[in-house]
């Protein structure tokens, strides 16, 4: 009798113990929910050193931070990092592998436009959600009416328009010439990115009445650009508008210097010109007073121009960046771009998809992204977010994003255009100390 009672008591205690374990485990099981994200950047190949590795770093800093702070609405982020190897075919294959084999819920990242254009279409075929942090060429979205591809970044044509708008504005004041007499040369890498920015340059020059004396593309892997230098010498431009990646930019600058090319100003357009540390390592102080078009660096946005809750995140990204790359001379806008765009997804799109649309599938994410209506100051990059609707020519493009023109002066960078954000007026004529200065 006693034994039976004891057995009952033990059984009851065991039941309670099991129930307790189950009860305790329940939140843990809820915590197990995760969104699997394929994160694709170029980690090897020429684009890696050309800026892609810095975008990878920016995205990773945010993903790590989000996970360290408990994830998003009960979902942990499970990133699967993939290397596109600076090759479009590899980018497509990796995206397909991530979708089919790794079973990711969505893809994020993509640096090179040459990879982005075909990969976006492929991902759309799978009806998977794609969040582009970087690549800017208009053809990624233009006239494609993609449903699941979103880009918070400004697009390439805007890059080309920004530099020419600035030149038109300052033509008379600085150069003492009517815009029609100001000679500009447009040179660019001949991929989707360079071609799109050059299109903006041509459009902007036509709008402002600038005189385009040369418009030419070249291959990023070209072993020699001396013919281009000779042509530029013959065309005698006042200003060079250049779009390129890193190895080609340093080759051009070196051969331009050796070839005796002179000009009054050079304006780069992102990619290789964004990373001042590498630019300076390749060309030394020759790059002093060069300009660059890009979204504003998150470390140069005036603190009162962004929402207060973003300020500590900007600080955190900067600290993590310097910890990862302690030899950085000037924090590159690359890292901030990817960080801001990844943060935007994690804090505005993903929570809404989970809370309002009930999950992390492509449809829920698409609806959440489409709903997004972030006013200016709502991102670390300063601009707001509203995506073009599906019927628009630029469906999925953030129509509130814009780039700025910055100038590198003595290891510091300043926003010099547009006027509203100007930290100082641009120095549009290279000083005599520059080896490229037109005497």
């Amino acid at each position, binding site marked *: 009798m006693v034994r039976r009672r004891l057995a009952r008591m033990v059984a009851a205690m065991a039941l309670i113990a099991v129930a307790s374990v189950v009860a305790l485990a329940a939140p843990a099981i809820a915590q197990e929910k995760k969104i699997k994200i394929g994160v694709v950047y170029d980690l*090897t*190949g020429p684009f890696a050193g050309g800026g892609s590795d810095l975008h990878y770093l920016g995205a990773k800093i945010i993903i790590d931070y989000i996970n360290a702070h408990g994830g998003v609405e009960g979902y942990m982020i499970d990133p699967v990092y993939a290397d596109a190897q600076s090759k479009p075919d590899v980018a497509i294959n990796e995206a397909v592998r991530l979708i089919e084999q790794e079973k990711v819920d969505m893809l994020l990242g993509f640096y090179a436009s040459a990879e982005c254009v075909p990969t976006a279409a492929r991902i759309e075929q799978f009806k998977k959600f794609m969040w582009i942090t970087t690549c800017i060429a208009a053809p990624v979205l233009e006239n494609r009416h993609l449903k699941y591809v979103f880009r918070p970044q400004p697009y390439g044509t805007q890059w080309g328009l920004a530099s020419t708008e600035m030149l038109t504005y300052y033509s008379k004041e600085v150069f003492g010439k009517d815009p029609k007499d100001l000679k500009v040369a447009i040179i660019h890498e001949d991929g989707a990115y360079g071609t799109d920015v050059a299109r903006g340059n041509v459009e902007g020059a036509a709008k402002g009445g600038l005189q385009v004396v040369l418009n030419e593309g070249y291959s990023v*892997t070209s072993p*020699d650009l001396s013919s281009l230098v*000779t042509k530029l010498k013959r065309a005698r431009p006042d200003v060079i508008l250049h779009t390129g990646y*890193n*190895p080609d930019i*340093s080759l051009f600058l070196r051969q331009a*210097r050796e070839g005796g090319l002179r000009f009054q100003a050079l304006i780069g357009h992102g990619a290789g010109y964004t990373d001042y540390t590498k630019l300076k*390592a390749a060309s030394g102080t020759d790059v002093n007073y060069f300009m660059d078009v890009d979204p504003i660096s998150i470390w140069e946005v005036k603190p009162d121009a962004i929402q207060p809750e973003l300020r500590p995140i900007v600080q955190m990204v900067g600290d993590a960046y310097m910890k990862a790359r302690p030899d950085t001379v000037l924090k590159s806008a690359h890292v901030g771009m990817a960080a801001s765009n990844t943060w935007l997804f994690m804090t505005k799109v993903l929570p809404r998809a989970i809370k309002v649309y009930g999950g992390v599938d492509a449809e829920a994410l698409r609806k959440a992204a489409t709903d997004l209506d972030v006013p200016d100051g709502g991102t670390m990059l300063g601009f707001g977010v509203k995506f073009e609707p599906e019927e628009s020519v630029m469906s999925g493009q953030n129509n509130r994003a814009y780039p700025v023109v910055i100038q590198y002066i003595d290891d510091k960078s300043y926003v010099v255009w547009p006027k509203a954000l100007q930290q100082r007026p641009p120095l549009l004529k290279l000083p005599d100390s520059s080896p490229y200065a037109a005497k």
Partner: protein
Amino acid sequence: MFDIYLLEAAINGILLGGVLALLALGLNLIFGVIDVVWICYAELIMMGMYGMFYMVSVFHVPFLIAALLTIVLVAAMGVVLHLLVIAPLLNAAPINQLLATGGVLAFLQALATVMFGIDFRNLGIRLPVIEVSDMYISYARLLAFGTALAAMVAVYLFLSRTYTGTAIRAIAQDRQIMPLMGVDTRRIYLVTSAIGGGLAGLAACLLVLQYDVHPFIGLTFGPITFMICVLGGLGNMIGGFVAAFVFAEIISVAGLYMDLEWGYVFAFVFFIVMMFIRPRGLLARRQ
């Protein structure tokens, strides 16, 4: 009417030709003797460029000493490549040899990425520029051009005036019969691989003055170097030398009058046409 820019483009073409001729020289020598194409030749140059970068910029070794060490280093890499990869495949089908050296190419790119990272690096040395009227001639390229000429002459003299050189030429003519004449083919192959590697090292010393080094720099030069070797006739060193200048002039002068990429289009069209007209190379005798 005299066009100074055309003259400048022509001179630039000659100087680019010097760079390409130097690249083609070692590759041609190896193919001519061992009958194996080192697809990874440009990657050996890349390793040499890294060697120069670290010795000069990090360990502050004087440039000339670093250059000598680099030549020796890459020559040793050539020997190791022969012993580990080429020698076991000497009698294999050519496609197997190509795949093996292609594997070495991927290995060296990956190794460089792991060892040196993805950053672009350069020596930061700026050589003076020669200014004539409104023309500017790069001293670094002039140096490459002069060195290519000197290396060509040196290799020619070595092959024609020395016993080992004669043995190398003899093996190039008939690999099977020479062992029967008492020639140690293994030693000759090693010497040839060392010279080929040494020439890659020499090219590295000069290229590092003109280009940033990164793990994928070989992609810039590899394909064009092979085309030049084929255009000149694989294994024909003088043919390769001439082909380099023809190729470079087409690229440079056509690139002046049209879009830069058209220069390459014309050069490649010329290559294809010549493959029909002279499939054994520019300087090959008609059979």
